[in-house]
């Protein structure tokens, strides 16, 4: 029973998401959630020991973000977003 968690902002949405994760879940950062790459880089590198983390390409590029800290994250386009949705039993959005 894996869950895809989408996070569209740092702060409360990201924090609540962290509390709700089970091993094997997937996290997708989108919209302002992609700022976690810088703001929450430590949190993400910890998180990556237990779950897979993805970012939405369009939102990363739009905001001039990069994988500055070489985190082991995946970049997905909209097609990849759909595939992640299909691969998980349910989706929870944190906003």
């Amino acid at each position, binding site marked *: *029973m894996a*869950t895809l968690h989408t996070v569209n902002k740092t702060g*409360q*949405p990201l924090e*609540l998401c962290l*509390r*709700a994760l089970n091993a094997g879940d997937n996290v997708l950062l989108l919209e302002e959630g992609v700022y976690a790459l810088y703001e929450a880089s430590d949190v993400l590198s910890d998180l990556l020991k237990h779950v897979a983390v993805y970012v939405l390409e369009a939102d990363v590029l739009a905001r001039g973000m990069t994988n500055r800290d070489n985190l082991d994250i995946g970049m997905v386009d909209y097609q990849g977003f759909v595939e992640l949705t299909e691969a998980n039993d*349910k989706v929870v*959005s*944190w906003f």
Partner: protein
Amino acid sequence: MSQTLCIISTQAPYRGQFAKEALDAALVSATYDIPTSLLLMGDGVYQILDGQSPEQLGRKNLSSMFQSLELYGIETVYVDGESLEERNLDPEQLLPLYTLLEGDAVASFLAQHDKVLSF
């Protein structure tokens, strides 16, 4: 066995219509016999702060709607304990209709449900 639904409500009570819509969704779902849980997290825990009087805002009193959940077969509201602590809320300040989820309990609680909706 009917699918279980968890409704997560994370926004403060009078911030837009989020809290109201989460409650409406819970009432509808329960009316249709879907086993429904309502989970308050983050600023959502302010929704069950006792003594809300939103009359001057011209808004519905959400705490009154919470009191009706039992009539819909929703016996308790689940609350993330960490969110209470972060906000310095004492249990006595809240409407006495909730069950605390402490520590890892939130994650396993969500995993027990088939579907999740967040507001």
